[in-house]
């Protein structure tokens, strides 16, 4: 049990564990002490000098990012001395800063802009010409605008301490100092360098991918979970015009800290893809498909199910990109129809890419977000490491065939030819689905609410960031309605209700609710957690 220390910050008493810094303690009483060089995920050089606060009894202002609290300390973050210091430091920053906010990618989410707006001088006093460094390509996804840099060295420290691949350094000294790469390749070949753009408090390091794409204030931020591997990094989807413009990590110390890998960060093109199934399609007697309203399509499907009757084997293929709710709804439907085989396929890479300075975070071998969920919900892995093959039985199955999300890209047009009933639920049309009697449009994870179960057995929620195309609906809703009508009960109306039902059916999820999961996620019963072998 850590010892607690009580101190006063701006007149408010606060108790924090011994060893806490003043900056963190101030955060607890809702006081944000402006800072640049301090980042909770890295060492603190205490060099930006913006976080200096007045500590009663101290001969001079103290850097709150490295000064730890002591009993009965009296700290002022808003005194004349503290504010005067910040004003002074901010003016120093603007001596050489180009103030090119109108063309700066960071504008609108820039700490320098915010701090100067809040506390800076209205008019700068510097009349001298500004120092000019110009622009440099750092390799990878990063462009460097030297003139905007505030020399906080977060980027250098990220590469040294967190990625532990020293690619950046400060060269020269005094106000000639500038961040630079060692060799021509710069950041090329590193796997986590996108994070240095995130930690840069100003627009000195910008993403080439995002450059000039959108202004910060035009972006909607939606909390989500990265779908690019089984780590389940907490992310934010930044959208505009119903398109994902970029992905940023969202803080979660249990999963990804403040970071995410470059692969996940840039793997969003498929979510923005334009050609989608937009209507429920029903195959007529002449094998021609006809778009229908949901009600009509579902009625026809239910009639078909009744015609087939019981006792016919069911085989289901699902994608581990589907949420727990979608997979759970599929499992329930299969169960209601009399049970059958349920499989999934997933791509894997040879090696994990571990973030050395935050070793619980890695780009996992398994490149799908919910394989753990699929396993827990009764799906079996088939196929190879490229998510191909393994469906020979299913392709020629003569019973009921349900495909959820798997694009069947390796399958021929004969797939499901012999099936009595072939239901294909997907976001994209597939040649292998040409025999499907029913093709239902699905939303992607970015268009629906839901949850994934990550490699550590942590269930994490994501929220819809984009509008679904046409009549696309989440899998849990479509399958939930089908199951409900077959059972003559009410269908779940929300993902939370769907999850609630799933938690009642599946032991691993027992007792969990959306509220428990919250923003940070919740870990399933440990014994049920699968490990990646």
């Amino acid at each position: 049990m850590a010892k607690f220390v009580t101190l006063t910050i701006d007149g408010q008493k606060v108790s924090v564990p011994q060893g806490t810094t003043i900056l963190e303690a101030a955060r607890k009483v809702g006081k944000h002490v402006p800072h640049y060089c301090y980042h909770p995920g890295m060492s603190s050089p205490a060099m930006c000098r913006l976080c200096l606060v007045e500590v009663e009894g101290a001969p001079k202002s103290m850097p709150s990012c490295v000064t730890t609290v002591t009993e009965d300390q009296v700290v002022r973050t808003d005194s004349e001395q503290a504010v005067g210091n910040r004003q002074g430091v901010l003016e120093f920053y603007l001596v050489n800063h180009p103030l090119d906010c109108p063309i700066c990618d960071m504008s609108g989410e820039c700490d320098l802009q915010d701090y100067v707006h809040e506390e800076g001088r209205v008019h700068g006093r510097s009349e001298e010409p500004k120092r000019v460094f110009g622009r440099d390509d750092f390799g990878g996804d990063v462009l460097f605008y030297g003139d905007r840099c505030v020399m906080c060295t977060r980027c250098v420290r990220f590469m040294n301490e967190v990625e532990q691949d020293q690619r950046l350094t400060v060269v020269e000294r005094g106000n000639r100092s500038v961040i630079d790469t060692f060799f021509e390749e710069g950041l090329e070949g590193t796997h986590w360098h996108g994070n240095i753009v995130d930690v840069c408090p100003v627009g000195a390091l910008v993403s080439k991918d995002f450059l000039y794409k959108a202004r910060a204030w035009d972006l909607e931020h939606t909390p989500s979970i990265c779908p690019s591997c089984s780590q389940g990094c907490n992310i934010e989807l930044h959208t505009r015009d119903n398109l994902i413009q970029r992905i940023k990590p969202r803080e979660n110390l249990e999963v990804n800290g403040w970071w995410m890998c470059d692969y996940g960060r840039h793997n969003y093109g498929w979510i923005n893809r334009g050609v989608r199934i937009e209507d429920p399609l029903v195959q007529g007697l002449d094998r021609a498909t006809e778009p229908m309203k949901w009600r009509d399509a579902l009625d026809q499907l239910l009639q078909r199910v009744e015609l087939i009757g019981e006792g016919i084997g069911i085989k289901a293929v699902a994608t581990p990109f589907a949420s727990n709710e979608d997979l759970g709804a599929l499992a329930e439907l299969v169960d209601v129809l009399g049970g059958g085989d349920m499989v999934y396929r997933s791509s894997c890479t040879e090696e994990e890419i571990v973030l050395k300075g935050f070793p619980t975070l890695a780009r996992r071998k398994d490149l799908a977000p919910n394989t753990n969920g699929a396993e827990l919900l009764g799906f079996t892995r088939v196929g190879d490491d490229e998510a191909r093959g393994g469906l020979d039985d299913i392709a020629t199955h003569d019973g009921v065939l349900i495909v959820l999300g798997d694009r069947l890209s390796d399958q021929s047009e004969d797939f499901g030819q012999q099936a009595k009933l072939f239901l294909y639920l997907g976001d994209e049309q597939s040649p292998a689905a040409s025999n499907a009697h029913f093709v239902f449009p699905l939303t992607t994870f970015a268009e629906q609410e839901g949850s994934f179960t990550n490699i550590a057995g942590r269930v994490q929620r994501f929220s819809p960031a984009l509008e679904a195309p046409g009549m696309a609906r989440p899998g849990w809703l479509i399958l939930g309605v089908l199951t409900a009508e077959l059972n003559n009960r009410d269908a779940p109306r929300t993902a939370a209700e769907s999850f609630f039902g799933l938690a009642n059916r599946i032991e691993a999820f027992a007792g969990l609710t959306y509220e428990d999961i919250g923003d940070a996620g919740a870990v399933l019963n440990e014994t049920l957690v699968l490990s990646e072998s």
Partner: protein
Amino acid sequence: MAYPYVSDVEVRIISKYFGDPAHRRIDTYIERGGYKALGKALTLEPEKVTEEVKVSGLRGRGGAGFPTGIKWSFMPKEPTRPHYLLCNADESEPGTFKDRELIRWDPHQLIEGCLIGAYAIRAQHVYIYCRGEFFEVNQILARAVEDAYTKGYAGENILGTGTTIDITVHQGAGAYICGEETGLMSSLEGDRGEPRVKPPFPAAVGVFGMPSTINNVETLAAVPHILMNGGEWYRQWGTEKSPGTKLFCVSGHVQRPGNYELPLGFPLIQLIEDVCGGMRDGNELKAVIPGGSSVPLINSEDARNCALDYEGCVEVGTMLGCASVIVMDHKTDIVKQVRRMVDFYAHESCGQCTPCREGSAWTARILRRIEEGQGTEEDLDTLMEMTEQMVGTTICVLSDSVAAPVQSSIEKFREDYLKLIRTSKQAGAA
């Protein structure tokens, strides 16, 4: 007359053999009583050695004036990890040239001091961080260290006592900031010479993360004499609070500039007029910087009332620093002088702390503008205000060193600035 200039009032203890090249040789040094203090120290308990230095009241000669014995006593008593003694020979303060001379003429005195110091703090390794530009000095020092090893004064089993102390001479690569104690440590470790935040202090976490003590060359050079003759002996010179002798590096517009070893508390005006033979060409004294370029400058009036010890300098609004007395006569352009100093600091700022990195370069530019006749009176207010933001707001005191000459010169020599500003206005009007 010997060694460029000497004076009868000098008390030459550490500078006794300045000007005698024979003294560099270890044999001569031993003949003249050298390394006896080391032999004596090794027979004592380390605490006893520290105690003797405490009694002497010796204060750090690098500029801060912290009592050396007390500094040594901060080191852990029972070493669980390696201890290091660092000797700061990165003498780079403009106007200072005492450490260079101490090593150049008497390298063994320093080596002996280092060995005694290392013994006192239970260090088995001494690093002498020597300014890289001192080519000759580095050669002399390297040779002397080699000789000390050969004669058994350094290395393993020193003088058969079983004590091991190694000495490494490290050459700096040309940065003023590496003379700052933690900057020196960063540099020694192979990193950029950037000062570190204190706490933790070097005695807890120093070079290579180990307990370390860092002393100036002049401090360590005095140690063998204190050990040999006792702490009380050293107190016969100087004042109660600033005991002993000190090398004064006098430069500027005096007849006989040079290094003079004098008791602390010596009157500044006497140093200028008697010891150094007065101002050049009979000119008038205008300003003095008594402690190296990073302390405030004082006018002739204050100079007349200034006693050269740590307290006396504070009384007239400046600091003793490393006692590098820069004397300026009435022909000096104070603005230009200050601008040149600020240019130096702007160039040497390591660039970590914002007030120093941006402030020093900005100050230099404003001063340059004033000097070139483009200044305004508002510039002086700006200078005063912005330099105020540079005092006590940074990791090390380099930024304070920019503020000191700027603020003190505007306060005491405002007329010099105004003259330049008025001339520029008249020129503009015409």
